[in-house]
């Protein structure tokens, strides 16, 4: 099937998914409200923290908000595209995963197009609101170049976080568990990166830069945009964000396919 045909198919599959989700309209609205509430909660926590202390590892409140908003924005897209990957274990356990293998299309693509969680409007409303507010407060000068860079690093962030979700889901092919790995590893790790990495021990910083490259989701790009230093790391390392995203996602895809191969020989 041609790439164009795949795009067309993706669009059709996800719009079906959206219609399915919108059947539960009240739940949908409540989720958006809930998401905005909890992100606001984190922002308020940051505010109180810096109410007394002014700075966290040389980052001010508004800079931290900005850092946070970059993470929320790419996570929002990530939820739309990849969040359901964490539930792959359930599909395998109750046998519904087989359906992706009896159809004449790429199973990764098919699984990816299975859901499209539009409740992440919550993330968009929140992060865009924050961007506007912070831009005023810090008098950020949004040149075309900078906007374009933000866009690219959000893409990088989506690929990195999406890639991790894909890897976590692939674990289900080996261990029959994935959802739990999300809650043990990725959820706390995402919380960790809401704050500037510079405050963490060096080993942790190193890990989040080069093993699971969460640093490239928000810390490095935000440092570039806000012209802040990133001690222990080369200056402007943030420019590599999109590239890191592509590489990491490619690795994740490869691991997933490896897992699928294993599934096809073990059936579970």
């Amino acid at each position, binding site marked *: 099937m041609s790439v164009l045909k795949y795009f067309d198919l993706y669009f*059709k599959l996800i719009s079906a998914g959206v219609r*399915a*989700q919108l*059947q539960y309209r009240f739940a949908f609205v409540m989720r958006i409200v809930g998401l905005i509430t909890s992100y606001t909660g984190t922002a308020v926590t940051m505010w109180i923290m810096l109410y007394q202390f002014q700075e966290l590892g040389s980052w001010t409140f508004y800079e931290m908000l900005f850092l946070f908003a970059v993470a929320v924005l790419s996570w929002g897209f990530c939820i739309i595209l990849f969040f359901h990957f964490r539930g792959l274990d359930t599909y395998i356990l109750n046998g519904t995963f087989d359906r992706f293998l*009896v159809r004449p*299309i790429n199973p990764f693509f098919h699984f990816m197009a299975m859901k499209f969680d539009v409740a992440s409007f919550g993330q968009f409303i929140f992060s865009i609101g924050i961007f506007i507010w912070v831009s005023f407060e810090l008098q950020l000068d949004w040149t075309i170049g900078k906007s374009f860079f933000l866009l690219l690093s959000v893409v990088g962030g989506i690929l990195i976080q999406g890639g991790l979700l894909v890897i976590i889901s692939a674990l289900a092919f*080996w261990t029959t568990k994935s959802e739990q790995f999300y809650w043990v590893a990725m959820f706390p790790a995402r919380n960790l990166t809401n704050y500037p990495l510079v405050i963490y021990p060096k080993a942790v910083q190193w890990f989040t830069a080069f093993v699971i490259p969460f640093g490239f989701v928000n810390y490095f790009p935000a440092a570039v945009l806000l012209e802040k230093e990133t001690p222990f790391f080369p200056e402007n390392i943030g420019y590599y964000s999109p590239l890191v995203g592509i590489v990491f996602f490619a690795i994740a895809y490869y691991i997933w396919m490896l897992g699928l191969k294993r599934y*096809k*020989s*073990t059936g579970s």
Partner: protein
Amino acid sequence: MPIIEVEHLMKDFMIAKRETGFLGAVKSLVKREHIKKEAVKDISFSIKEGEMVGYIGPNGAGKSTTIKMLTGILVPSSGSVKVNGIIPYENRQENAKNIGVVFGQRTQLWWDLPTIESFELLKEIYQVSDKRFKENMDTFTEILGLDEFLNTPVRQLSLGQRMRADIAASLLHDPQILFLDEPTIGLDVVAKEKMRTFIKEINNERKITVILTTHDMEDIEKLCERMILIDHGQKVYDGEIAVVKERFGKTRTLIVDLEESPHNLQLKGGEAFKEEASRFWIRFNRDEVSASELIAQITQTHNIKDLTVEEPAIESIISRIYQEGYQDLPEIVKV
């Protein structure tokens, strides 16, 4: 030219020794202790275009595993599979275009969407032309009565409706081969009958090759001329159903109601294997003794109130075979 060719097919599963807990899960990432389970052991058969074959066997025999290898979901441990000239596990997507699959136990439709939308999505996935889609939908709607629930979300369908929708969905792209893994499971008598009629019809009119697994022998009796019987992953019979019936059908059961209830009933050529109040079930071989001879024997000592002679259905034949072993089966195919 056979459309499906299976030779010396094997599938082993490595069943991990159950390790619970986090450490177990982490440990199992590195190293696992396994027990080998041979789900399919050396099965060979070939199926001609347009045939309808019943693939039967007791629970855990390896039916679903075979179907999964034929559809490309599983890779065989050894042996060869060819479906329409394609090796399914190597060319899964190509193979998928030629086949339709229904797993009776679980739906392949979009759970939360109105049924019609699942059909429309499958149309896109299989790239069915508008014209063909419409023709097929019209036909299926007419035979299966889909219109009564086309706008209902799949999750609200009754089991019978869901199964009808599922089988229609599997045929939208005009596959040449249809795999049905327990297509009548959980259906009521009328729904089963409708399902059978439909399967028969598409096999007759569209010349679709059908492989069907089921635990309902009536499905087999009404639909298939040929059956492949497997157990513990091995083929124990492959041939006409009529032959099995002929062989085992020689055993008849005579049921008599007597006026009094004697302690036991000794008959030449017949064996009373069950009794209840004054009713007796007598098994006999048609070749050795006739029913009227038996009746004559009984009337010498007792008064018969009522009687019937039962021919065994394939159902009871198979259940006897499952229980008593396969040594009496005609022409056991050893490959």
